[in-house]
């Protein structure tokens, strides 16, 4: 996907005010200088089958995703969101109302609101049920990128890994284990704000481990920052049910998506302080320090399993259950 974006959408020159963080940065959002502040903006389209899954729905996902993308740029107080919905002819009205209620409730949770939107209907068979696009804007004094890591920096994850990906996958494969799983889809701007307030200078990188999971997020951070990252597998929080289902399906939980978590790169002296603050927040109780940046093997992520070491592979395409 990153290759596709690079090869198609990054072609052709654009003139932007100096200092703008634009498309070519391939960060979670863009940042434009406005006076002594930054205006951060982001947009994302959401498709998921099925639209309702354990722990969430497409509406909750669409709001959380955009609020979190803003937060990953350091902008934790979203001014407002937009919401565009494309519906397949025949989509159930009660489902639509349920999604709308979820969008509303999630906005309240994040302390923001939808201020403009658009609705289109397409003919049956032209899309799979429903597609939602949201965009968001927020102001911040300081932009946090995904590329500020140096050797010695610590890596924190704000909670258990793989919850969303495995919840959806277990639900889709009708494994009869639904009760054991719940997606983590949630706006985490308040959690990120708490972390940034306690270490405004020392938090040097933020990334949400959505598609491609922790592995993709770490690879992108390592590559853009020019450091290697060594992760201690035993320190990564993973729910027992997620671990078990991932073994059954042959899917690495570190490749599975999260929709309510952040990966935080922090200077070593502030790591414990940030961790303590995160653990006091409602969504950060399972936060953990999981790794360290090194100068060797820039761009690579090494997983120390306790038995040995291996390179963490960057997942490509859709996650597929394995036969062996």
């Amino acid at each position, binding site marked *: 996907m990153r290759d596709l974006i690079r090869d198609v959408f990054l072609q052709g020159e654009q003139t932007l005010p100096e200092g703008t963080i634009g498309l070519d940065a391939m960060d979670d959002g863009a940042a434009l200088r406005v006076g002594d502040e930054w205006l951060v903006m982001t947009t994302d389209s959401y498709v998921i089958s099925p639209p309702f899954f354990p722990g969430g729905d497409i509406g909750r996902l669409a709001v959380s995703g955009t609020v979190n993308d803003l937060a990953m740029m350091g902008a934790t107080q979203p001014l407002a969101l937009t919401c565009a919905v494309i519906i397949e002819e025949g989509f159930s009205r009660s489902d639509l109302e349920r999604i709308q209620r979820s969008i509303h409730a999630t906005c309240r949770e994040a302390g923001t609101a939808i201020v403009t939107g658009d609705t289109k209907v397409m003919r049956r068979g032209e899309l799979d049920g429903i597609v939602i696009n949201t965009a968001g804007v927020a102001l911040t004094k300081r932009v946090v990128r995904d590329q500020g890591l140096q050797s010695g920096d610590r890596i924190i994850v704000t909670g258990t890994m793989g919850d969303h990906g495995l919840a959806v996958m277990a639900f889709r494969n009708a494994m009869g284990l639904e009760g054991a799983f719940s997606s983590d889809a949630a706006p985490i701007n308040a959690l990120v704000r708490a972390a940034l307030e306690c270490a405004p200078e020392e938090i040097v990188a933020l990334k949400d481990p959505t598609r491609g999971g922790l592995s993709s997020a770490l690879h992108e951070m390592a590559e853009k920052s020019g450091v290697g990252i060594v992760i201690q597998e035993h320190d990564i929080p993973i729910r027992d049910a997620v671990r078990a289902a991932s073994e059954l399906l042959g899917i690495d939980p570190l490749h599975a998506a999260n929709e309510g978590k952040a990966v935080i790169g922090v200077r070593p002296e502030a790591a414990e302080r940030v961790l303590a603050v995160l653990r006091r927040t409602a969504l950060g109780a399972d936060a953990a320090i999981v790794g360290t940046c090194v100068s060797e093997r820039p761009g690579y992520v090494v997983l120390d*399993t306790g*038995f*040995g*070491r291996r*390179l963490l592979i960057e997942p490509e395409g859709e996650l*597929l259950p394995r036969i062996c």
Partner: protein
Amino acid sequence: MNVLRNRDELGAHLRFQEPGKAREMAATLAHVTRSIGREPVSVMHVCGSHEQAIARYGLRAVFPRELDVIMGPGCPVCVTDVPEVDEAVLLAAQGVRVFTYGDMLRVPGSVKSLADVKAEGGKVDVVYGIGQAVQLACETQEECVFFASGFETTAVATAAVILAGVPENFSVLSAHKYIPPVMEIVAEMPQTRIEGFLAAGHAAAITGSAIFERFAERYKLPVVVTGFEPLDILAGLIRLVELVRDGRAEVANMYPRCVTREGNRPAQEALWSVFRPIGGRWRGIAHVPNGNLRLRDRFAHVDARRRFTIDLHQLWDRAPANLTQHCICGDIMAGIAAPTGCSLYGNQCDPDHPVGACMVSSEGTCRIWHQYGGHLDLGYGS
């Protein structure tokens, strides 16, 4: 299987994931290997699950330098031959609903993969197993085919489902393979460096460890059956290298908690009542006598090959030159050749366009060389 007498014993049986113990065992493995006094000592495992576990836990980083643990033809997806993928592709292209294991999706046929045909609108669904495929077939009137790949382990599941009865619109395209014959092929390769085999515990749970006894005797090679936890693999390798060192061509069962000498009789009966072994090519390796499992005549009605006309030539007439004939996967697996000795490596064969099994598999020798530039030093302990 042994009955566990108390909780302590249960605990002892479950402790196969202790890093401290693994370090001690890695040291023992190094000691035993070095006591042979020459290098490399080359052994082969023939199981995708072993390779996954070795890779998953980073065990290669703790194997001694003098020990070469070679990935054999043990990944069923990788050894599924091009024509077999082509058959599934053609079925999907002619409107049949094809169910497949996820990792078969991107394996290239002569012109396209199942993923390609899906992108073009073909009905290809990833399933977790044949049970799920049958369930989905019950919900539709469409003709449904399960693309059945895998070794003895998954073939038994296919057999059991067929014996239990399947809906009328359901049939099976068998690409199932049988491991014991290919071990003979590897052992017979001229100049082979393989000195012993690590056999797969789950396959042996069905076939029984005795199946390897004749092989060990005939080829004068030790075989160790083992499981899939890090300590299982280390224990299996220690035993195997000991047998190599002592020149003992024996079968050892290091997985007694699951594997018996005679195996699972009802499963064997189900397997052989549904399937018969025939010879066939394994991708990039060789023609393997009795290496492929096909449905017996009495199950012709659920055999996709007999139910549909699958004209491979319509695909092959448009296909580019068949590169697999230049592929030297077999030699690479036998430890005779290195990937760089292959004329296809890195130009016509790469991870995006794999030709042979060693490049298809994420843990295949060629794929690893291509991605990491040969042997990978991760500085364990640094």
